[in-house]
């Protein structure tokens, strides 16, 4: 049984912008899938429909055996604890320490009160520290997040997601604001989590070459529709052109750039 299934999902913003248009696909547990497409194609919308940061207009999204589109408050929060999310701009609480941000990954499973006052068990703190260690951030644990570099912040973002012990990690352009070296570190960590912890990863990417290098499967989105779904090897120049349509400028920077190795 697939861990995630989209059945004829559409999303229309404000009754006019059709961001997703009859999207269907399914993802098996443990897959590492990249979603590529030009900006405005609907990648972020697609990702956010899964954890309902955005509500789909029609269709069904089955995650872990349940249709998430009909869920109410409590059920929805439970699903969210099972899906970690990583953002382009890291979305950390900058004024709190690194370790506190990582521990935010447990909020969904805590009582309102202990979450409110930030009371965490010894076991949770220990695990947060181990995760930071595995990401090479042990030395930064008590620093405030606004003292970190972009690459370090994104690793805190990853740590927060892993802390949730999720079944699925959603990454919305995780390396779009990073330099090539930090980008590689982040992508390597994601690949490592996918391989060793068997967490399914869906990664929105702007860079075709990065997607081809890291994923076993690529979904190409253009104008709210899926125009490619297959292996990186099957992704030829013609298909890339189709995904990016007339936007050849995107192509030049994405494929021609040797920066992303």
């Amino acid at each position: 049984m697939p861990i995630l299934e989209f059945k004829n999902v559409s999303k229309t913003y404000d009754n006019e912008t059709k961001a997703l248009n009859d999207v269907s696909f399914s993802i098996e547990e443990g897959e590492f899938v990249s979603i590529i497409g030009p900006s405005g194609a609907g990648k972020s919308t697609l990702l956010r429909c899964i954890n309902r940061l955005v509500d789909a207009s029609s269709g069904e999204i089955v995650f872990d055996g349940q249709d998430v589109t009909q869920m109410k408050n409590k059920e929805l929060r439970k699903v969210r604890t099972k899906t970690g999310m990583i953002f382009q701009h890291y979305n950390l609480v900058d004024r709190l320490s690194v370790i506190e941000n990582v521990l935010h990954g447990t909020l969904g499973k805590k009582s309102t009160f202990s979450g409110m006052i930030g009371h965490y068990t010894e076991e949770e703190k220990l695990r947060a520290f181990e995760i930071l260690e595995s990401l090479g951030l042990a030395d930064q644990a008590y620093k405030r997040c606004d003292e970190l570099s972009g690459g370090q912040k994104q690793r805190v973002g990853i740590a927060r997601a892993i802390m949730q012990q999720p079944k699925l990690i959603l990454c919305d352009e995780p390396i779009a604001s990073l330099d090539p070296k930090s980008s590689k570190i982040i992508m390597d960590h994601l690949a490592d989590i996918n391989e060793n912890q068997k967490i399914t990863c869906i990664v929105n990417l702007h860079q075709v070459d990065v997607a081809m290098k890291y994923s076993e499967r690529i979904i190409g989105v253009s104008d709210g529709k899926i125009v490619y779904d297959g292996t990186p090897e099957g992704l030829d120049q013609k298909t890339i052109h189709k995904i990016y349509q007339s936007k050849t400028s995107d192509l030049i920077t994405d494929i021609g750039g040797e920066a992303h190795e």
Partner: protein
Amino acid sequence: MNKAMNQAFRKRKITYTLAFLVVLALYLISAYITEFDLQTGIKAFPEAAKWMSERLIPDAKAWERLPKILDKLFETALLSVAVTVTAGIGAFMFSLLGSKTTGFRGIINQLVRMTAAFFRNVPDVVWAMVLMFSFGQNILTGYFALFFTTFGLLTRSFIETIDEVSASCVEALNATGANFIQIVFQGIIPSAMTGIITWILYMIETNIRSSTLIGILTATGIGYLFDMYYKRIEFGSAGLVVMAIVVLVIVIETISIQIRKVIK
């Protein structure tokens, strides 16, 4: 390219010229109506300064009254702090309903913003006059008058602060499955705290000035003392009151600058 730029600059020049002419016209019209003459206005300054330096110097009697003045000054400062802090707490809770970040519906947002605008746009002196009918000349009148404007202003400022600084972490905390109260305490409060404190300090300063004025109206606090001495033509004491207010405002401002430095 160049042509577009030239056009843009020309447009700006025309805008500036028009704005200047409008201001000039407004000045001339209002000066004509109020019979205000800038020249006489400026000329009157030295004379006023001379008058003040001669009469407003505290005399021996004034210094004798210092404890009483300080007592009232303290009362006024305390009132301003109490008003600002209580209004701030109310405004913070209210602003959560008015912020887009927290995910409340559009109608609630609009309602909150409209209420805040109403409270903010009625000047505190007007609030004081209106409230005087229900509370009389009483410290409560001053309290509520300041409370209403402070509440309205802080609500709007807090909404802006929250939307600006915590939208991104609120999204992330929502994605972890945290609930509303957890998000407020773990995301919104930590990220908006500096902004909130800065606004509260600013409002304490403003309210000390306002409460002096309102005190004249409601016969309370330091404003009342000033009014009384002034009407009794005891200019020395009135002068000491003014000096005390100035010192208080400077002290409060220095403190808040220090606090702002620390919380940065």
